[in-house]
């Protein structure tokens, strides 16, 4: 059976969003490591550059406003869980999930379950 054009597109985007989610998670990890290391000229807040790398500085500022130093907790929240940030890990996984739903019959059962487990697992932790 040949593949629908839409199926091919959705599969591509599903995987691309998974990639982005993973890349962003790594980026966050790097940013976190750097923030633990004293930089040139003393301890500096590297979180701002993490936001810039993630193309999320504008959305962060729109949400939290300008400040002398960005708040690490908020950055993590914004980049990981914020559904309002279209580049967040959560948003990417949601997009991957929705792309997957539309092409359900093109995914193997393992793929389908894995998709559900991963995307279902990323929710902001409750305090």
């Amino acid at each position, binding site marked *: 059976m*040949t593949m*629908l*054009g*839409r199926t091919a597109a959705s599969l591509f985007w599903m995987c691309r969003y998974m990639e982005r989610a993973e890349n962003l998670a790594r980026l966050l990890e790097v940013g976190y490591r750097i923030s633990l290391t004293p930089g040139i000229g003393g301890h500096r807040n590297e979180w701002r550059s993490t936001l810039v790398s993630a193309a999320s500085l504008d959305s962060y500022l729109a949400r939290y406003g300008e400040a002398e130093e960005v708040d690490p907790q908020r950055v993590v929240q914004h980049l990981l869980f914020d559904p309002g940030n279209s580049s967040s890990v959560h948003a990417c996984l949601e997009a991957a999930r929705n792309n997957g739903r539309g092409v*359900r*019959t093109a995914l193997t059962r393992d793929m*389908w*379950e894995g998709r559900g487990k991963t995307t279902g697992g990323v929710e902001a932790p409750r305090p």
Partner: protein
Amino acid sequence: MVEAGGELRAPYRHVGAWLNEQTRGALRRKREEADTIFRRLGITFAVYGAQEASERLIPFDIIPRILSAGEWRRLERGIEQRVRALNAFLEDVYHRQEIVRAGRIPMELIVRNDAYLPAMGDFTPPRGIYAHIIGVDLVRTGPDEFFVLEDNLRTPSGVSYMLENREAMMRMFPEHFATQRIAAVERYPEHLRATLEAVAPPACDGEPTVVVLSPGIHNSAYFEHAFLADQMGVQLVFGTDLFIDEGTLFMRTTRGRERVDVVYRRIDDDFLDPLTFRPDSMLGVVGLFDLYRAGRVTIVNAPGTGIADDKAIYSYLPEIVEFYTGQPPLLGNVPTWRCGEPDALRYVLDHLDELVIKEVHGSGGYGMLVGPAASKRELARFRTLLKARPGNYIAQPTLALSTCPAFTGSGIAPRHVDLRPFVLIGDRLRITPGGLTRVALKKGSLVVNSSQGGGTKDTWVLED
């Protein structure tokens, strides 16, 4: 499961004995096992209007509902007679309307009905079949008494639950299937495909290409659309995957366009084709209906079948069966009062707290009143509604629906059930043995619809 005298009815002999041996803990573990199986399979049901992420499982009860071979044979005969009459009625309604000329049904009931599609007039679909896939809702009120509660001829759903329920039961209780002869339901997708291919349009030469046309991932029955397409080995398409060119329907594939011959559509008539029906529809295909009338594509079920599953027409079913088959109906209707008729309205208003009132065009268990269970305020409200638009309602007596044991929070307890066998009409007429049993999970409740908290059971038809 038990007779009036407390004796275990014959079909339940094995299961009854087995149930007696189970502890609550064991049954609970089995139910958790079922939940896991269903989650893995991803059978979810989206409820419109639900606030949170709207995918959830339909509750499944692990205790099967069992019918004997003899009981089933009697039901089969009645179902077959009924669906043949319904298709004959549809053919008549869209051609000479003999039944109206003979004065058996008032003309207004048909032409004023929203589901009646004048656009289908004077057109005969392949093999003269209008409703290829039908779900007949049955209830049992006595050891030998079944009534048809409702017919579903538009886009009946639930067959995927029937199939997955069976799958889950076979995994959890293989010993039962090994020791009893339980009629198989697994061939439904195969039969469905054969049915669809059998009604290929006249313009189709060679092997027909079938697709399942879904409104999309946000539709509450999306799982079923994907499931059936997958099981049949055909494409699942959305309207945007299809287009018409040179009098042919095509789908867009990675290798260019491919012709489509039969569309199993799970989209309502209204949204099928913005050129003929609702112009604001984003779900259908522009020009599909014209192509259909030109005999270049087949739509299943045909547009316009809703006229036959309307609750107002339902009350005329006995006449309809007799008119087209020459026989009295083998399967009865629930006695129904048409509130649009003054005498009926008077009776209904006098007995409101004993009756079930339903909207003629309602579905899913919404917009109805269960008299005996209603508060004074609800009764008063319905009284007003009835007086304002009597023609919008029918009334039926509350039936003593049969119950079946279910594994509830407080152990095994009786819960009301209904039954939806599925019928396929194409190259042959086939009825799934059993079908989907829906169960009202709340104690004493008569509402089995999944959108209102109902659940399902596997249905076993024992072979002789």
